[in-house]
């Protein structure tokens, strides 16, 4: 299963490091990553493979939110199918 992780918030050093470490600790593989500053906000999107992750998606969502609260950014983790469904007619 794959998921999309989105980070939105005020830019500061170490966001990518902390999020990457968080994912690596749980066996999640980052397959794609992009990062930009959008309207003054740090915006990062990752495609993550969860096939070797030790947690369920629901557990991971909760942990990611906690991490976001600690760093001071919003972290959303969602099953990739919701994006495919909304934006890909051929699904």
């Amino acid at each position, binding site marked *: 299963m794959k998921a999309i992780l989105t980070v939105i918030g005020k830019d500061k050093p170490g966001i990518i490091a902390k999020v990457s470490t968080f994912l690596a600790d749980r066996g999640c593989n980052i397959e794609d990553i992009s990062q930009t500053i959008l309207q003054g906000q740090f915006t990062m999107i990752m495609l993550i493979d969860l096939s070797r992750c030790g947690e369920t*998606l*629901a557990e991971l969502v909760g942990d990611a939110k906690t991490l976001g609260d600690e760093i001071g950014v919003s972290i959303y*983790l*969602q099953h990739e199918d*919701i994006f495919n469904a*909304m934006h890909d007619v051929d*699904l």
Partner: protein
Amino acid sequence: MINNQNILETVHMVQKEHLDVRTITMGISLLPCIRATAEATADAIYDKVCRDAEHLVKTGNALAVEYGIPIVNKRVSVTPVSLLTASFSGKEPLLAAALDRAAKTVGVDFLGGYSALVHKGMTDSERSFLNSIPEVLASTDLLCASVGVGTTRSGINMDAVRDLGNIILRTAALTADKGGFGCAKLVAFCNAVEDNPFMAGAFHGIGEADRVINVGVSGPGVVFHALQNAEDADLTEVAEIIKRTAFKITRVGQLIAAEAASRLHANPGIVDLSLAPTPAVGDSVARILETMGLTQVGTHGTTACLALLNDAVKKGGMMACSAVGGLSGAFIPVSEDEGMIASAASGTLCLDKLEAMTAVCSVGIDMVAVPGDTPASTISAIIADEAAIGMVNNKTTAVRVIPVPGKTVGDEVEFGGLLGKAPIMAVHTPSSEKFILRGGRIPAPIHGNKN
């Protein structure tokens, strides 16, 4: 990988524009529960609802977390209960209590189906059933009732319409301490649909499978924001924007519906292509109409804007899911839409304009508070007018009015939560009593006979 702009659009819709799945509703057939006595039938009903819907709430919550999309309500609809009580006249409250207990046990928000379909005529047991509605709605918390009073094929049963005026007033009186709240759980339908996931009018039709998942989508806020970015668009472009947005919204509903049905081992039912507002700011159908260029909803042009919106929602949603059903279209409940509330409070939106709007959208006079001293015959006449619109236009129409005890025009009633608050709206005072007391049946229109 999906492009970043699309990902951020989805995140933004959920976080800022109130995109949600409004309801996952499990339809459950109660036909296997009929026993020799009312007591045994009540027990069987309780057991079946608890068994079939045991994992509904848990599954809905899990899907919401995994897909990152709020699923606001988890509900159950059941076979019209009047079909089960036919041999137990007078004992209807026993079955109602069992259903209410079952709804609480499985943790759903509402359970619909305390219903009777009397669009052509009434049996003695159905008369007894209709009479039980006020006490049942006053003594239960989660049970919702509906009555089908007409169809395009059969005409309008005006005896039932006449009785409903009194039933609604009695329901209001028995729940007077809550502003007549019982009436918020009671709908009168013309052309009632068997797979509606929305309350209070949901019931599980007899043509349905044993266990079915129906999903109602929402998203007025998403459409509103899409149109805000199109200030200079002409109405052809406006319709296109709504279609594209409705497609995306509905695809979410289709995804959740398919996944929920699979996990719950239920038949995949329909997706109801709805724009269902909530009282929250930014989640209003009225504000969409105003974004099209109306200073306030209810003014001239409102019906045309609503017709455009309703049609574009259907066209966009139709391709996005495999089975369309339910009510499908824009909802215009007054108390549940902050834009409608504001317009009704200011006097721009009146009952007559609402009635006109129902000719071009998906439902009817919905969540409208009227003075507590409104005569039963006036309430019946409001139902008759709505039913006539539905019958002649071959569409579903409904009436959910709340005559609020002790309140009159200028007052307000608060129901709380998603049901919101409503200014008391004026009804016409000249009497319709003689018309209503005639009873009988308004014959089906000529185009109702299509064979």
